[in-house]
C-alpha cells in the first residue's frame, strides 16, 4: 500500500532487497519475517512426525505403518454370540465401531428399550414415542434379518415370499400371532390335486375359485366346482373354510379377497390366462416351497417382540 501513496516519505532503498537482480534492474524486496513465524513452521514439522507415530501413515511394502493409537470397542462373536472387548489400532473403521458401541450405550436409547420391553403390545401401539422408536429400531432389524426374502419395505415377492404390507395375514395379524410366526417359523402347505381331480373337475373348481373374488361370473361350471370345493371330492373347505376365507390356524389363503399371494392374477390380462394359471397351481399344490425359518435363538426375544410390532404396523396395524 505504501508504494502508491503519494505522501509517502519512504525513499527508494529504504526497504532492503534480497540482492538478486533479474533483467538488469528487476529486484526483490526483502521484508523479513518475524523469527517466531519460523519456529511455528518447525513446530508443524514436529507435529507431522508425531502424527506418523500415532496414526496410520507410511506405506511399507504390502502393508503400512499402523500407528500407536488404539481404539477399544465391543463386538459380538459370531460363533458364540458372546460380547467381547476388542482393541484395535486406530483407523476410521475401528473408530466407527467404537462410535456405534457408544450409540448403543446411549442412555435415551437404553431407557426407551427397557420401556418398550416392559410394555404390552396394546400399550406400545397407542404411544407415539414408543412407535417412533419401534419403527426406527425395527427398520434396522428388519433390514438385517427379514429383508433378504420379504424385501426392504416388506412388500415380498409374489409366488415366493408373502407381502407383509397388505391387510391379509395367512397366519393371523395380531402381534401375538406375528411374534409366534417369527419365533417358531411357518410351513405353508397345500396338497397337489392333479392326481386327485380329473381334468374337467379341476377346470370346474378353478371356475368356482375365480367367482369367489369376483374375477368371473357364476356359471354352470362354477356351480359344479362349488360342489367339489365344498364336498368330499375336493374337500377344499377343510383348509380354506366353507366361506373360503381361509383359516389362520392352517395358514390357508382367503380366496374371496383381491390379494393373490402365489398366482399373480392382477398381472394377467385375459380370463383364459388367469384360469390356466390357477388350474396349474391347484394341480401342483404347495410343498416345501413356502417356509418361514425359526428365529427363536437366532434373534433375541426382545428383538422378536420389536419386530412383531414393526411388521404389524407395516401391514396396517389392524
Amino acid at each position, binding site marked *: 500500500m505504501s508504494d502508491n501513496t503519494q505522501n509517502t516519505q519512504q525513499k527508494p532503498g529504504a526497504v532492503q532487497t534480497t540482492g538478486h537482480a533479474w533483467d538488469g534492474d528487476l529486484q526483490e524486496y526483502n521484508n523479513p519475517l518475524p523469527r517466531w513465524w519460523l519456529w511455528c513452521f518447525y513446530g508443524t514439522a514436529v507435529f507431522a512426525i508425531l502424527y506418523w507415530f500415532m496414526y496410520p501413515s507410511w506405506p511399507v511394502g504390502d502393508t503400512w505403518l499402523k500407528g500407536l493409537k488404539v481404539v477399544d470397542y465391543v463386538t459380538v462373536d459370531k460363533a458364540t454370540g458372546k460380547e467381547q472387548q476388542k482393541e484395535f489400532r486406530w483407523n476410521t473403521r475401528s473408530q466407527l465401531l467404537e462410535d456405534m458401541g457408544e450409540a448403543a450405550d446411549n442412555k435415551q436409547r437404553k431407557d426407551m428399550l427397557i420401556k418398550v420391553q416392559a410394555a404390552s403390545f396394546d400399550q406400545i401401539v397407542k404411544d407415539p414415542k414408543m412407535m*417412533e422408536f419401534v419403527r426406527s429400531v425395527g427398520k434396522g432389524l428388519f433390514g438385517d434379518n427379514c429383508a433378504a426374502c420379504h424385501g426392504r419395505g416388506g412388500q415380498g415377492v409374489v409366488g415366493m415370499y408373502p407381502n407383509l404390507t397388505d391387510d391379509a395375514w395367512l397366519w393371523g395379524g395380531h402381534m401375538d400371532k406375528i411374534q409366534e410366526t417369527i419365533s417358531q417359523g411357518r410351513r405353508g402347505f397345500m396338497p397337489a390335486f392333479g392326481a386327485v381331480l380329473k381334468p374337467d373337475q379341476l377346470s370346474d373348481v378353478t371356475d368356482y375359485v375365480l367367482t369367489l373374488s369376483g374375477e368371473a361370473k357364476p356359471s354352470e361350471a362354477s356351480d359344479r366346482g362349488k360342489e367339489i370345493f365344498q364336498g368330499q371330492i375336493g374337500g377344499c373347505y377343510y383348509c380354506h373354510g366353507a366361506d373360503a376365507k381361509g383359516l389362520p390356524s392352517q395358514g390357508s389363503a382367503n380366496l374371496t379377497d383381491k*390379494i393373490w399371494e402365489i398366482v399373480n392374477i392382477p398381472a394377467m390380462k385375459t380370463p383364459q390366462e388367469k384360469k390356466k394359471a390357477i388350474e396349474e397351481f391347484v394341480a401342483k399344490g404347495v410343498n416345501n416351497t413356502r417356509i418361514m425359518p425359526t428365529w427363536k435363538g437366532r434373534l433375541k426375544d426382545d428383538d422378536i417382540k420389536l419386530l412383531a410390532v414393526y411388521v404389524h404396523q407395516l401391514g396396517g396395524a389392524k
Partner: protein
Amino acid sequence: MSEETVLYQKRIQIYPRSVKGRFRNLKTGILVLAYAVYFFLPWLRWERPNAPSQAVLYDLPGRHFYIFGLTVQVQDIFWLAGVLIIFAILLFFVTGLAGRVWCGYFCFQTLWTDLYMMIEHWVQGERPARMRLDKGPWNREKLIKRGGTYALWLLVALWTGFTFTAYWIDAPTLLVDMLLGRAPYAAYFTTLFLTATTFVMAGLAREQVCTYMCPYARFQSAMFDHDTLIISYDQKRGEGTNGRAKLGKGLKTHEERQAQGAGDCVDCGYCVQVCPVGIDIRNGLQYQCISCALCIDACDTIMDNLKWPRGLVSYTSEKALQGQKSTLLKPKTIGYGVILTAATAVLAWSIATRSPYTGTVEQIRQPLYTRLSDGGIRNTYEIKLNNKLTAPMVVSIRIEGLPGATLDMDGMEQLELAPQERIKLLARVQIPPVQAGQGSAEHDKVTFVIAPLEGAKSDPVRRQVPFYVPEGGQ
C-alpha cells in the same frame, strides 16, 4: 548490497505511550460497553417455561439456541448464515466508507490488547519506565512488576475463557461445577484453551496478530478507494517547504517557522510513541495501521499546547489530501447499503414470521403402494412434527384433495406434543378400488393439513405429496 540479507528478524518490542483525547475516550467507551455485554450476558436470567432460564444460551446437546425471547431450532440454523452474511456485508460497507473501523475500535484483538496495555501501564508505569524495566536486570522490582502484570493478565484471560464457556452451559451451575471439579471435560478444555490464547494473543503477540496472522487486516485494505476515510498526516502543512523541524532557537513561534520554511510538525515523535503497531504515520498509509486514531489524539494534544490549529494528523481521504472533494455516496457504497438493508430485512422477516411448529410429510417409496384385500390402494407417509415452543401444543392432521380417501394413523391423527418435542409418525392413506380405465390424474396427489388446535396460533401447514396408483387401478 553491502549488508548481509536477513530473511528472519527478531521482533521489535513496542512500548506504546498512553494518550488522552477524543478517540481514546471513544475507544474506552466502546471497550467498556463491549465488556459489559460480553462478561455479564451469561449471568442474565430469562424466565422460560420448560426450558433453561439463561437469557443467552447456546444449548448444543439440546439442539437449541436461546436468545432472550427467541428460541432458534436446528432447522432454523440458516439464520446464522444470514447473520454472518450481514456481518460480512457490514464489514465491506463500513470499510469502504470509513476504513478499518472494525480493526481500530471493535476487534476483540484490539479490545483485549488495549485492556492488557492498561494493566501493564498501571503496574509498570509509562513507556520510559517500561523500557527501563525491560532492559534492566532481573531484580526484585522487575520480578514483582512483571509477575504482577502476568498474574493480572492471567486472571483476565481465565475469566474471558470461563465467560465464553458460560454461553454454552448454564453459567451459575458451570461456575460451581468447575470449582468443585465436576464440570464436563469440554468445559475445562474450552476455558483453558481460551485462557491460553487470550494470554498469548493479547499479552504477548499483540500487533503481530494484526500484521502477520489476520487475513481481514490484509483484505480490508483492498476495499479502500480514494474517498475512504484514512488516518493521514498532512504532508504539506507538516513539512512546509524545508521539511519538519524541532522547536529550537528561532523556530519557536508559528511566524518564525513560516519564515524559515519549516512545517508545522515539530517532530516530537509523540504520534510514533503512542502507536500500538509501532509505525510512523508520517510515512503515509501502511498496511500495519489498524486505524485506532491514537496518533490523532497525540498530535492534537501537541497542537493544543502550542495553540496551533488541530488536524496535522487527522481522518481524511486521499482525494481530500489532493485538494479534491470526497464523495461518500458512490455506487459502491450505495450498492453495499442496498444489499445490507435487503439482507437485514429478509432475516428480520424470516425471524418475525417463524412458525410455532413445523410439519413435513414424505411418501414412503418402499413399497410404493399396497393393494388391500378389498382391492383398494394404500400409500404410506412419514410425518415429522416439531413443536418449537417451550409449551405443549395439540396438533391435528387430516387429508384433503383425494376423492374417497381415508387417513389412518392408529389414533394419532390428533396428538399432544410436549414442549420442544420432535416426533416422526406414520400415516396411511387408502382409497377404495379404482376401476380400470378410470384416469389416475385425480388420484395422483394428496394434501396433508397439519393444524394446531391448542397451545399455538398459526395457519395450518399444508403439504401436497404424491399418491401413487398403479396403472389403471390394477
